[in-house]
């Protein structure tokens, strides 16, 4: 492909003229958010679940709920859980379902780069994933002794947002790799595996040694520890940062590869 010599070429003579990625990304995000807002029930379901977990499992256990340190850890863990569940479910299921509908193949016939579509789907889901923290924080503030400084809260939310990216990418990857029915099963198993293994339900300091070591390879553990470090203002350890970074890079590569390889579920 030779480069056109005339820089003043019109659209007519430049068949490869394309639009800028950023406005296209913004348009996709906007339409995905609008679609979700007009049928909000699925999002409401995943928003209620983590707050209910806090209400039923943590609040009645006054040894935890009345201890400021344990209660803060529990609230932070369930905030990670909330974002993780929402990311895996909303993204994984939406992507898998969309692949079974004819609109998605149509979008693939447009000049739409894979990275733009994936990042738009990630962003649109992340908006709602983040909203699912709100009920957890409300229950935590009202019904437990959990406490956090304003700086700690903001730092915690920022870190939570960053560490949730691997879950969004895993959700997308599952959606691109499996049918919606298979995706539900895989997400359910994976979700609880990540939650227990990452110490979101049961603090890792009470794990047996082998499990604590294994747990350090879970993205949910990295998210929990980094979020807690931000909330409590402590310095995170290297393995947490390295683990989170590795999961982000690997899952991004996986999602991109699966998107490009995917040809939809429809034959013909």
């Amino acid at each position, binding site marked *: *492909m*030779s480069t*056109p010599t005339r820089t003043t070429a019109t*659209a007519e*003579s430049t*068949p*490869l*003229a*394309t*639009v800028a990625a950023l*406005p*296209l990304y913004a*348009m*996709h995000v906007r*339409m995905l958010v*609008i*679609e979700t807002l*007009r*049928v909000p029930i699925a999002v409401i379901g995943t928003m209620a679940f983590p707050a209910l977990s806090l209400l039923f499992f943590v609040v009645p256990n006054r040894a935890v709920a009345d201890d400021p340190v344990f209660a803060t850890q529990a609230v932070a863990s369930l905030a990670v859980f909330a974002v993780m569940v929402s990311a895996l479910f909303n993204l994984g299921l939406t992507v898998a379902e969309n692949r079974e*509908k*004819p*609109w998605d*193949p*149509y979008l*693939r*016939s*447009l*000049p*739409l*780069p*894979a990275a733009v579509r994936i990042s738009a789907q990630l962003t649109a889901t992340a908006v709602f994933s983040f909203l699912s923290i709100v009920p957890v924080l409300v229950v935590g503030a009202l019904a437990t002794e959990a406490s956090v400084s304003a700086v700690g809260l903001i730092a915690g939310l920022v870190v939570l947002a960053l560490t949730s990216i691997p879950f969004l990418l895993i959700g997308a990857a599952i959606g691109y790799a499996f049918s919606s029915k298979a995706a539900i099963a895989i997400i359910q198993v994976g979700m609880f595996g990540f939650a227990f293994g990452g110490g979101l339900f049961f603090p890792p300091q009470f794990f047996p040694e082998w499990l604590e070591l294994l747990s350090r390879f879970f993205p949910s553990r990295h998210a929990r520890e980094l979020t807690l470090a931000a909330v409590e203002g402590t310095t995170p350890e290297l393995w947490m940062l390295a683990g989170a970074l590795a999961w982000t890079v690997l899952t991004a590569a996986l999602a991109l590869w699966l998107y*490009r390889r995917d*040809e*939809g579920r429809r*034959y*013909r």
Partner: protein
Amino acid sequence: MTTLVNGHFARLENATRRFGETVALDDVTLTIGGGELVGLLGPNGAGKSTMLSLLQGRRRPSSGTVELFGGNPTDPRRRARLGSTPQETALPDTLRVSEVVDLVAAHFPDRVPTDALADEFGFADLLRRQCGALSGGQKRRIAVALAFVGRPQLVLLDEPTTGLDVDARHALWQGIRRHHAAGTTIVVTSHYLEEIEALAERVIVIDNGVVLADDSLAAVRDRVDSAVIEFATDSPDAARALPGVVRDEWAGERLRLTVDDPDAFVRSLVRADVPFSGLTVRGASLEEAFLALTLSDRSAS
């Protein structure tokens, strides 16, 4: 630039696409040149949509090559001058019509304004409606309009008038002709012979993934001009052996023959003194015509 040097917009070369055991497209080679209005004709499941999905970069060929504007269609940049319409009425239910138009238009550097597009394709009164509330015909018109929103050089229309009433179909045909006259290259698929006859200059007939004919409209129409003759007879073997029979089967007690020239066949039937009763002649349906085309091609080669 490669596009102009090669002089074609799209090309398949020995393209084969399999789905498991099924061969949806079997060693197809063809070229779509600038300014053409091509009809892609074939029954459901013939491989038309598979061919389009390869050109759109939605699928890759199992073997062979597919080129769009001189490059690989799976590269999104190659699709910047391509307009497509979804085969099913696929529009997202919850989005408004104007939002869908804006979303699709956002992919193209030079878009048609929403109002102009809506006026042209007759859905100006529907812009505020959610797509889920539209009738099948309304969705179909909007889906076709989407193919033109980015001022494409090549448009692929997959069954554009399915589900439309006669008036809407003719209005759409006019729109397609107008865009072609204005310089847009158009490929339209259909399983209606009538639609292809009304639109296309060049016709590609495809069945079972194989290109049966690729010629001018007149030439192809002559070749699919076959008929089905039915009658009761005591000597079916003699009837079958007559010249011009491309297919035979039993329809209950009656022998059903597909022939390429009904007049000549009846003359030879009488001349050969084959006993028959209750003879009926009807024009072959498109699928029977395709079959005649395949079998006469085989006997000719």
